């Protein structure tokens, strides 16, 4: 009850202010802090579900300090050519881990990571005659966790946001399903739950440690935030294991393995011209 009344006051207050003072006011009010902090808050999204009222609670309404990390991935396509079965294994492992439904109808499809042709993944790199290796082999594509993500900018509710480690994450509790982020992603990496996703899952055989989604929200690869947060590797990287077909790490740490790999190999990113600074790199 109380919560509702507060919500009401909040709507009333915010709409009035929005009408009067424009967006700065709203921004400050929503992040419940000084202008300086509010600006910081735009960089990394703070825990601001109803911040302001609940500041008393531990850890609430506090600004999140950017960790300085930028998590990224290197995909070594040479290794995927050596192990042709690996890609499908990776896809299945990711989808099983995250309870991604499997819908036969093309209209309902949801996917987080999947194989596509070289020319589809890298339209800017197409050549007159593809060499055999790129022609027959598929490229795994998944969210690039862009450093300047257009999907985050587009999202009107901050349901899509960049967390302190540079992961472009989704808050499914908040998504209104406007699909503006899907139009904004230059890579087509986002899927929408057109219907109840549980209809496409074998409910007796799902990962009970990770939730499903509900209909009407957008989803995509989350860089395994739930695993990385516990110090584990993303599922796909784990599945690749010793093949080292996928390497995960902090791009901002000069000592990290991923930096070493980037230094030693020529890598490309998908559609660099979109200006999104993808954090996923490919070795062709």
């Amino acid at each position, binding site marked *: 009850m109380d919560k509702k009344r507060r919500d009401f006051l909040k709507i009333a207050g915010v709409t009035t202010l929005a009408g009067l003072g424009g*967006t700065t006011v709203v921004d400050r009010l929503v992040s419940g802090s000084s202008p300086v902090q509010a600006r910081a808050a735009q960089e990394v999204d703070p825990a601001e*579900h109803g911040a302001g009222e609940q500041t008393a609670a531990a850890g609430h309404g506090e600004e999140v300090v950017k960790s300085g990390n930028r998590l990224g991935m290197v995909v070594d396509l040479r290794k995927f050519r050596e192990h042709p079965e690996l890609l499908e294994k990776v896809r299945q492992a990711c989808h099983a881990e995250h309870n991604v439904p499997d819908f036969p109808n093309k*209209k309902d499809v949801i996917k987080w990571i999947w194989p596509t042709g070289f020319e589809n993944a890298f339209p800017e790199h197409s050549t007159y005659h593809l060499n055999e290796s790129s022609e027959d082999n598929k490229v795994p594509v998944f969210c690039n966790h862009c450093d300047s993500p257009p999907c985050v900018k587009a999202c009107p509710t901050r349901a899509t946001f960049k967390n302190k480690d540079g992961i472009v994450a989704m808050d499914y509790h908040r998504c209104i*399903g406007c699909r503006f982020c*899907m139009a*904004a992603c230059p890579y087509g990496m986002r899927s*929408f739950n057109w219907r109840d996703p549980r209809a496409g899952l074998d409910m007796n055989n799902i990962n009970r440690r990770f939730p499903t989604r509900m*209909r009407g929200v*957008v989803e995509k690869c989350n860089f395994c935030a739930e695993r990385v947060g516990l110090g584990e590797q993303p599922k796909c990287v784990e599945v690749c294991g010793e093949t080292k077909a996928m390497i995960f790490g902090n791009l901002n740490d000069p000592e990290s393995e991923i930096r070493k790999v980037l230094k030693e190999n020529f890598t490309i990113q998908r559609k660099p011209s979109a200006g999104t600074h993808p954090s996923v790199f490919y070795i062709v």
Partner: protein
Amino acid sequence: MFEKALKGNNYYWMWLAFLGTFIGIAAICYVRQFNYGLGLTGMSRDVSWGLYISQFTFLVGVAAGGVMVVLPYYIHNYKEFAKITILGEFLAIAALLMCLSFIVVDLGQPMRMLNVIFHAQPKSMLFYDMLVLNGYLFLNIICGWVILTSERKEVPPPKWIYFFVYLSIPFAVSIHTVTAMLYCGLPGRHFWLSAIVAPRFLASAFAAGPAFIVVAALILKRVSHFDAGKKAIDKLVTIIIYAALVNVFFVGLEFFVGYYSNMPGHIATLQYLFFGLEHNGHMYNNLVPFMWGFVVLFIIGITLLSIPYTRRHNDFWLGAGAAAIFISFWLDKGVGFVLGGFVPTPLEEVVEYYPTANEIFITIGVWAMGFFVLTVLYKIAIGVEQEIE
């Protein structure tokens, strides 16, 4: 003043009942969609916006177009428009209600709609769109209502209302500019990523809005005794002609940039829309008839509006010309622009979109709701006019 809407002849009631039927059907279809999810539409992960958002985009234009009668009257003191400004303002109200409904029916989680305010993201163009659309709706409601009330009392409108009237003019421009920015701010969608989208939207709006008003005024002349005046209509037609030509000129510029520069990204969508796009040995062309419909209706419309005989001496041809322009620009913006932008997909594939029956009925129902509101509002406006005569 609402009592004016409660007195009408049989045709009036039959028309409202006719619209009501479609609203009812749409309500049932919406309940189905609400319970199942947007999977009942033809949209997919590749074409993630469909009829709803394309209608929204077009109708924002219709709402903004109303300013083309408000501006000459209030800024240039063009007295001939005295009677039709109210038509423009009420048209804006009805169009905006349709816009907002289209947004709501398009949401996957409509119950959480207010998150746009609770968790406002000032970097998102959708946030500004919400502000300006609601602002413009509010402005038109007060301006229309206050001015009509004072007309009825036969006193000059209060001074303060002019503040809102003048404010509504930049707002009209802003609603369509911000709506254009929803599209032209997206990297990686070549067809939308064009600086001319906003001017093009405005030009098409300033033709489609007045075209609707002309048709409405001609109909009102037949079914009631409301006469907008020959001079006013003639002026509106001039506005329509210029705006329509500018719009088509802008479309032509897109063609030049695409085909002369020969940039694949710029050509692909135009090719798909007007000629069909071949991909992996399959021809994709389901929007081609609509786009040629746009061209043909534009030529018919502009001809009828330009030839002095059809323009000035025959209401039927004049109405047909204005209607042709309206429908033509609906095909351009309400069908082609939004749906075409999704082809090719970011992964260089072609996926075509076919709306489902459920979706089409909801779309029709929202339009019917708009016409319903418009009819009632126009009825009130005319009732007031007749009362003071």
